């Protein structure tokens, strides 16, 4: 069974925000809510500026699921973390628990009243009939049930963001970093566990890249 994951290649992301736009349009995400966003660090520093596209990472041991007081989350057989908006009470605990800031709330009315939580669904809808109007209105498109992958990844012009079965996308990423290494760029292929997106249990801690191997790094 597939275990769906995202990987964002920071060497390729050009901060075009195409993924953000694609997600908002495909799922008709309301104004004020961004299921996906691009984060840039070292802005303007030549050789060190890196961008990464972030959304729900569909964690294997999701903290949002652990803290939800009404237990509205569930994990599908494909490893996608979803939630039932009919159960969600909009308390915001998941927002505090999530290390990626994935849970989003639409601010409605006075006094900052929160809506029900909204987040990336890996384009696989929610607990409504696949492809139904009810599912679309609450959760957005269900592209997985249409035999497609999340649009943010499929739209990515540089293929920095890749999505799909963790084993498959890990293999794609492995190929890239292996080619980079063979071209004299800094190493990276050995820090990935190939059976899971984040490395299986017992994976040794990666050795930091020497400063003289990082372009632009001051030694």
């Amino acid at each position, binding site marked *: *069974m*597939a275990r769906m994951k995202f990987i964002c290649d920071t060497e390729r992301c050009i901060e075009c925000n195409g993924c953000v736009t694609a997600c908002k349009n495909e799922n008709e995400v309301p104004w004020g809510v961004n299921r996906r966003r691009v984060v840039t660090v070292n802005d303007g520093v030549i050789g060190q500026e890196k961008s990464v596209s972030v959304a729900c990472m569909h964690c294997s041991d999701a903290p949002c699921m652990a803290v939800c007081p*009404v*237990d*509205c989350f*569930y994990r*599908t*057989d*494909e490893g996608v973390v*979803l939630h*039932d908006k*009919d*159960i969600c009470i909009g308390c915001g605990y998941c927002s505090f628990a999530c290390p990626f800031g994935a849970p989003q709330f639409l601010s409605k009315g006075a006094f900052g009243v929160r809506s029900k939580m909204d987040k990336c669904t890996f384009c*696989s809808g*929610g*607990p409504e*009939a*696949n*492809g*139904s109007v009810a599912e679309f209105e609450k959760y957005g498109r*269900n592209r*997985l*049930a*249409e*035999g*497609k*992958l999340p649009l943010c*990844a*499929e739209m*990515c012009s540089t*293929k920095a963001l*890749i*999505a*799909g*079965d963790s084993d*498959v*996308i890990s293999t*794609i990423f492995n*190929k*890239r970093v292996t*080619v980079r290494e063979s071209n004299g760029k800094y190493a990276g292929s050995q820090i990935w566990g190939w059976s899971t997106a984040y490395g299986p249990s017992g994976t040794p801690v990666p050795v930091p890249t020497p400063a003289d191997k990082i372009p632009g790094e001051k030694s």
Partner: protein
Amino acid sequence: MKLNLKTLGIFLVAGLLLVACSEPPEIAAKAAKRPDFAPYMGADNGFMTKNWTPGNLQSWTEAINKRNQNQSEYSRVK
């Protein structure tokens, strides 16, 4: 006897008040977790890709993995 009627009345009023505080069954039913539909069952909305059979897990997995390779230039450009 008089006391019994009064007690009965209190119990009746208390009972009615408690009923007013209860949750209507349709709301209580909505709070239950529902099973989701697996993606390999397909979507009945006319946007499905054609290269797999809805309801067949293996067919769906193969189609998704094949589509996945579109994200790799090393697979697309040979």
